[in-house]
């Protein structure tokens, strides 16, 4: 039963698997990118839930603080700000590639792309 208590991790694992499965199983390149996005979001949730301290508040020292307050850990959030930017950049590069692939091949289905690549080489 202990394993069920950490439900946030179950959520993260589930999302990661959904993302990874989409990347592997879908032929449509945009769907692959969406899968990749879900995969990255799972990791972001993992970090954010890691930073939560039970009973902790936002890590801003209020006036008249006596040192007994409990704060959540802000560092994972800051790290994830960077990871989100990385994710956005990856998505932008990926979509730009998809647009150019569509222009060059006239399709964004992976099996069709492979067929054309084989026929071309």
């Amino acid at each position, binding site marked *: 039963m202990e394993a069920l208590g950490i439900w946030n991790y179950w959520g993260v694992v589930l999302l990661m698997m959904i993302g990874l499965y989409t990347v592997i199983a879908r032929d449509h390149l945009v769907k692959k990118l969406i899968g990749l996005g879900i995969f990255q979001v799972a990791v972001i949730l993992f*970090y954010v839930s890691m930073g939560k301290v039970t009973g902790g508040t936002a890590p801003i020292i209020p006036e008249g603080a006596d040192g007994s307050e409990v704060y959540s850990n802000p560092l994972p959030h800051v790290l994830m700000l960077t990871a989100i930017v*990385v994710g956005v950049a990856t998505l932008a*590069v990926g979509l730009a590639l998809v647009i150019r692939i569509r222009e060059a091949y006239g399709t964004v289905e992976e099996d069709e792309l492979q067929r054309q690549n084989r026929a071309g080489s």
Partner: protein
Amino acid sequence: MSEHLSALIVVLPLLAAPVCLLLRQTRMVRAWTSIVAWACLCMALTLLERVHTGGVITYAMGGWDPPLGIEYRLDALNAYLLVIVTAIASVVFPSGVILTDTSLPEGKAHLYFAALLLCLAGLLGITSTGDLFNVFVFVEITSLSSYTLISLGKNRQALTAAFSYLVMGTIGGTFLLVGIGFLYQVTGTLNMNDLALRLPELLGSRTILAGFAFLMVGGSIKLAVFPLHQWLPNAYTHAPAAVSAFIAATATKVSYYLLARIIFTVFGAAFVFDALHLHWLLMPLAIAAMFAGSLAAVFQTDLKRLLAYSSIAQIGYMTLGLCMASETGLTGGIVHLFNHALMKGGLFLAVACVVMRTGSSSVNAISGLGRKMPLTMAAIVVGGLSLIGVPGTAGFISKWYLVVGALERGWYAVSVLILLSSLIAVVYVWRLVETAFFGVPEHEVCEVPWTSWLPTWILIGATLVFGIWTDVTVGGASAAARALLGVTP
């Protein structure tokens, strides 16, 4: 200023990239890129010299002391890697073939050079930083710029190759991020040295084990360890030839450094090899890579793809050095980083020269070119001999250390396998020699201008020089190996 060198070597290319967008004219941007690469090489050499005389250099970013702040930490291994990366950059960037076989629209060349500089900055950042999360950020900077560079290849297959690399690379990078998260969760620190201090008492934890596994898999995808190498042949084949030269010679080397750093500095050889027996997993994969890569190279009809498969085999040799976890073995692996960077960089540049003249990179394209383009073809031959490991070339030195390392560990079968797989390299190199010197010329071409063959020969010539004069390469590598193993000289 001089104490800031370890930060400036990363900051300079990072800030030089936006300057490219302001300069805009291709000729000025080219000159600027080359100047930046040379400046980085000078800094790297100064840093290497300083590390060898004065020991580890640390730099606290923003004045925040580690482990709270981000620390840049250079020891013998980082400094050695910095020299490899900047040396390759300072030869490839100014070369005359840098724009060969790209599909850049008119007036967009400055963006290409900006991406090259960003890639350089990312590689130098991974190498210098002592902070795990900072490593992830620089890994992504490198990867994103290399996806862009690869997609600029002439054929449309470059696009699909870049897309598959993007998918694999992002999964690899995200795995690294998950691993870093696990380590942070247990230890509460991201600084590699601090981690090394805190980990030993926590090594039994299952979270740490999972984190280690994620880091290894993520790093192995980036390094293209067999069987995670699928992205590499297509990416190297369809990228512009100069980009292949730069990335093949530097990106895998830096990923190798990252794996070595995680294994030896963060977790420690005792845990990884004595407790987890990782070498029983990595060694068969390395040997499989040596044979599968070399065998696949034999059957390729495209020069760049042939070199890419040979890279997979060479990555196998380096990983083998990692598995030995002894001073000789690691020295062999690290010196092979240097030598392989030289020969693969030189060979890809030579192929770029061929593409420049014939417009094709197929093996048939060099048919009979031995007379028409003697300098380029001689470079291919010498580079090929070095890939085989013929005495007198740099490739011999690294294989020698690897074989000795295997014998020291009592792995006699492994040392025989190293020699056997080198014999396969003879086959594919001989094919090139035969086509180039005994084939019938298909193209009426002349030798490339000196701006193209000179950079090729600087790298190929260096493999000859460092095949005989080994003080610098082997000396630096063994110092790096000692730093990794924590042996004080």
